[in-house]
């Protein structure tokens, strides 16, 4: 999105929006239109150029916390953050760190499976939305088909299709997380941030075969499908899942949880198994141990949805089929020992 003449354009759009009553209740679009909007948003940044202030809000023990970061998007290169906490994205690669101290944390994975379509597990509705960062939007709501409750809202720039804000909601409608632009502007004539010439290689390696020969669970929770398996630089194994709208990873390590060394968190027993949960700005994490394997589940889904996947993995504790599969996966003869 080259937003040359942006202030004038926004003013014109605002006048136009007011003239036609945008932002008021309007008939929802068919679900497949909503899906098209979400699909387009995933690649919109490849053709966009703008900079903006990005606000991040999340709920932690009932209280909303806020912070802000910087984002610059130029022709497919995304540069986020500041100081030593930069993230750089280009094609299938992701670097973190800072100039002179980059670490490559993600490389292309041509073998990764395609995620299911969002409508496979969510009811999608599209309608004109409110202005976000001064831009008129289309709003896509994703509702749980079982309850009808909206669990996510996406606000997309009507002109470019760029995602300007994403909300994740609790079952009762309470805001859990929000990532959205507060202001955007043309990036000017600056060149895209070049990819680092030198970077530490900390990217996980795709696993071509399950170490133990036993299958990792292909599906967990309510429709999370396994897209790929990876070995992290520290030796842990990542199982990566998606339900088409949200994603979830299980990180598995042999051993038992050192609870005393972990920070305090939300402790809860899931089907008799001790777990400890931590909210992060844009994800939730749950740690537990089972069958000699320490498992950390990290997900951008609403925590209650991620918990369903955790319950599935924990199963009935010792003897559960999914839990046994994971234990064999991690502890199998070609896995760890």
């Amino acid at each position: 999105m080259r937003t040359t003449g942006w202030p004038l354009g926004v003013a014109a759009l605002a006048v136009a929006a007011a003239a036609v009553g945008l932002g008021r209740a309007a008939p929802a679009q068919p679900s497949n239109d909503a899906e098209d909007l979400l699909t387009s948003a995933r690649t919109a940044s490849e053709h966009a150029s703008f900079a903006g202030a990005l606000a991040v809000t999340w709920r932690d023990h009932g209280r909303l916390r806020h912070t802000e970061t910087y984002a610059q998007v130029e022709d497919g290169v995304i540069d986020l953050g500041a100081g030593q906490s930069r993230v750089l994205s280009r094609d299938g690669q992701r670097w973190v760190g800072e100039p002179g101290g980059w670490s490559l944390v993600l490389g292309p994975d041509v073998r990764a499976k395609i995620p299911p379509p969002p409508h496979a597990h969510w009811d999608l509705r599209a309608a004109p939305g409110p202005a976000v960062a001064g831009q008129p939007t289309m709003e896509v709501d994703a509702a749980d088909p079982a309850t009808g409750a909206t669990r996510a809202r996406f606000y997309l720039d009507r002109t470019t299709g760029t995602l300007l804000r994403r909300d994740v909601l609790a079952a009762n409608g309470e805001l859990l997380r929000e990532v959205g632009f507060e202001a955007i502007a043309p990036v000017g004539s600056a060149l895209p941030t070049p990819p680092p010439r030198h970077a530490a290689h900390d990217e996980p390696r795709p696993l071509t075969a399950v170490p133990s020969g036993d299958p990792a669970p292909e599906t967990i929770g309510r429709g999370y499908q396994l897209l790929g398996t990876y070995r992290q630089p520290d030796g842990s194994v990542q199982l990566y899942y998606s339900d088409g709208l949200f994603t979830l990873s299980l990180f598995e390590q042999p051993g038992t949880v050192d609870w005393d060394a972990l920070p305090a968190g939300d402790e809860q027993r899931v089907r008799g198994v001790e777990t400890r949960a931590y909210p992060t700005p844009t994800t939730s994490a749950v740690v537990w141990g089972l069958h000699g394997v320490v498992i950390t589940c990290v997900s951008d889904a609403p925590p209650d949805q991620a918990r369903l996947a955790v319950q599935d993995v924990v199963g009935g504790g010792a003897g559960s089929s999914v839990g046994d599969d994971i234990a064999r996966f991690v502890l199998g003869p070609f896995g760890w020992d």
Partner: protein
Amino acid sequence: MTPADLPDDLLSAYVDGELDADTRAAVEDQLSASAAWREALAEVTAARDAVRALPPLDLSPEAWDRLLGRVGADEPARSGAPGRVAAFRRSIRRQPGPWIGAVAGAAAVAALVAALVVPNQQRVTPKVATFSTQQQARASVVGDPVSALAGATLTQGMGR
């Protein structure tokens, strides 16, 4: 062929279960037939285990508590805005909004870090911050990259 001449990368991939079936079968044939290969395999396995047993750097529970104490909820630290954001705002000549600065974010990020390391091979402290960064980086491939990576700027770099 001595153990020093043997293909450590191949054996490492074998130990990690990352060979295709044919290659793995070939390696196993060699292991069955050659004491030198078995010796090399033992060295590769021992080296890998030694690396995994290295003590990690991380915050102690006490440091974690101190960081958590610094995190303010509902009370933005206006003066702590990240430099790039502040510069951006100046560039578009807007007054700063009621947004919180880096203090809360940095402290929350640091809080995630406590999750590190493995005192020994049996007791594990998952690296929650690093895992969160990895999850978000991977999610950015199949989803909207900007919103997925925004969280990574807050969690990356804090875990080993």
